[in-house]
């Protein structure tokens, strides 16, 4: 579509990420501060792909214990019982409770993994300088950004349960180690989304078209 649209960077301009003011960097300098709101200015988020990749790898590593370790431990007078997220899905699966089971399955298992896969896809396509499906990739990025925070609901529900169900002699609920890893996955994927600069998708596309022009100039 608008692959040929020139970017601000190609024009040697920086846009402020906070107030949107377009500014020209000082001669001989690449970074600076917004003359209007004093926000730090960069052409592109620094080390965007590197950081995103680092967060993604960390998230992927944490994803394994998040699903293997129990997230909640229910202590009753008869002993304690630990459940992982997947066990919770199985536990909820019943003729009447299956929608709830599906929600947990999507929000807690599918979405975090889908986020990691989607961002990895974006990082690698940008790295390889792909110019295909640029519009779709940006839409994917926006979706990941919007949907990502909802995974945190799981952590909130668990922490509420833990703080509310403390009927000490009879029953109490304690957080499992999996919960910390799960929260780490959510936070790390959000950080990865944050550190990814979607403008990079267009850079390779426009550089292929415009780069010769700039060089010529």
């Amino acid at each position: 579509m608008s692959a040929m649209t020139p970017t601000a960077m190609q024009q040697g301009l920086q846009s402020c990420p906070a107030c949107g003011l377009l500014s020209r960097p000082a001669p001989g300098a690449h970074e600076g501060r917004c003359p209007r709101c004093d926000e730090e200015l960069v052409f592109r988020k620094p080390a965007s792909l590197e950081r995103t990749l680092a967060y993604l790898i960390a998230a992927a590593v944490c994803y394994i214990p998040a699903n293997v370790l129990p997230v909640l431990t229910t202590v009753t007078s008869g002993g304690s019982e630990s459940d992982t997220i997947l066990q919770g899905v199985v536990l909820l699966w019943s003729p009447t409770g299956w929608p709830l089971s599906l929600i947990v399955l999507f929000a807690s298992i599918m979405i975090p993994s889908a986020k990691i896969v989607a961002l990895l896809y974006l990082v690698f396509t940008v790295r390889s300088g792909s110019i295909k499906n640029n519009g779709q990739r940006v839409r994917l990025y926006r979706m990941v950004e919007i949907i990502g925070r909802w995974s945190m609901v799981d952590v909130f529900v668990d922490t509420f349960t833990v703080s509310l169900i403390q009927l000490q002699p009879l029953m109490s609920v304690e957080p499992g180690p999996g919960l910390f890893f799960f929260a780490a996955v959510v936070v790390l994927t959000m950080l990865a989304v944050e550190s990814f600069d979607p403008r990079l998708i267009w850079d390779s596309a426009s550089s292929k078209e415009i780069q010769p022009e700039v060089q010529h100039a």
Partner: protein
Amino acid sequence: MPDNEKSFPQVPEAKTVAKKRTRFSLVWVIPIVAAAAGVWIAVTKILNEGPTITIVFSSADGLEANKTKVNYNGLDVGTLTSIRLADDHQHVIATAAMSPKAKDFLVKDTRFWVVKPRMSGLNVSGLGTLISGYYIGVQLGQSKESERHFIALDAPPFAGNVAGKFFMLKTPELGSLGEGTPIFFRQLSAGQVVSYELDKGGEFLNVKVFVRAPYDQYVSPDTRFWQASGIDLTLSANGLHVQTESVMSILAGGIAFETPATDSPLPPAAADTTFTLFSDRTDAFAPPPHDPQTYLLVFKQSVRGLTVGAPVQLGGITIGEVTQISPQLDAQTMAFTVPVTISVDPQRYGVKFMNAPEGEDMITVRKKIMDSLVSRGLRAQLKTGSLISGALYVSVDVVPNAPPASLDWSQDPVELPTLSGKIDALEDNVASLLKNLNQTVTNADMLLGNANQLIEPNSVLDMELSSLLLQGGDAARSVRLLADYLERHPEALIRGKTGEAK
């Protein structure tokens, strides 16, 4: 980029700030930390991974995979991970993931059982499992041989993992004993019956008991165990005497033990020593039969009421017991006889002035004594011990005027001559009563005879009686004359006979 200044003159120039950049991005610390945390978790999980064992249960009642715990002294040492039916469809095989600490006690004689509410006798256990659900109890084994496959017990071996010793008791009958029956030492609860099983021969029962420390040190090889079930009532010259171990033993039975006092106490008995379980205390402390002698008694009468174990008494003192009763048919004479085997303990009766002459052993001396006794009338008789139950006992006594008999020492056991006829005390009494009655009748007869003699004709009494009667008649006549006269002359009472006076 000097050209953009020309192109966008209205765009202000940004401020320049010097900034240092590092080659290595710190962001890579995050995945490293995450990976380290993940690895650490994985390593601890692998290190905490204990052995997996299989336990065979007879029923999966109350067991749940991933829920049921293996509990040792209140501590979780494992969890059942799966339960499946055995291939023979008779048992249930449960797999349990044990904690790494449990590795030490997974040995050959470690026992597992399901802890659930139980009532045996007055013992109630496992009430907590009503709320918490069943769990699996463990009793640690002593073996050094590691084992991963176990067969669960149907009942807990005994309460808790306490120090003590196991002993075996042999008893012909179980009585009111059961698993959990208490064991008393000087009326203190000192242990309990763990299990019992029929001996392979089927002749007696092996009762496995557990005696807790410190009571186990009072069990020596000489210790006597007896059934302390119920109440022992003794009515003696001193009054009524009631003895029981505890209220519980009255209701649920019990076993008591005691060691006879000796000058040199024996060391404590080793675990798994076998003892005899006596039926009562008296029995337990009776001196053990020493060199018992068996005799055969042949009765030609009914032995109804005589049982194996019936006492053999000498002068009212028990000296032995009946060991066997079996009727026999003599094919030649077509007569039924009832040979009764008795066992007599010579230690139960003392012998005065018994000294073996030189060159003769005790057996020949004993034979001589027996021969002499029999020739003097030593006979066995059946007597009624109880008029109510009709139970018989064997009385061995010297009977005067007994028909002559002798002992045949070539037989084994030796046949002791018997006396039949007066088989019971009642008959004895009736006979003596009849004898007395006879005497009375004779006396009465004599009395009548004497009376007869007194009133015979021509006797002095007779003559005197006749004259008495004559004189009586005379007297009566005189009275009549007087009466007649007075009727005609009533004034004569005052004046006398006037006619004669005229």
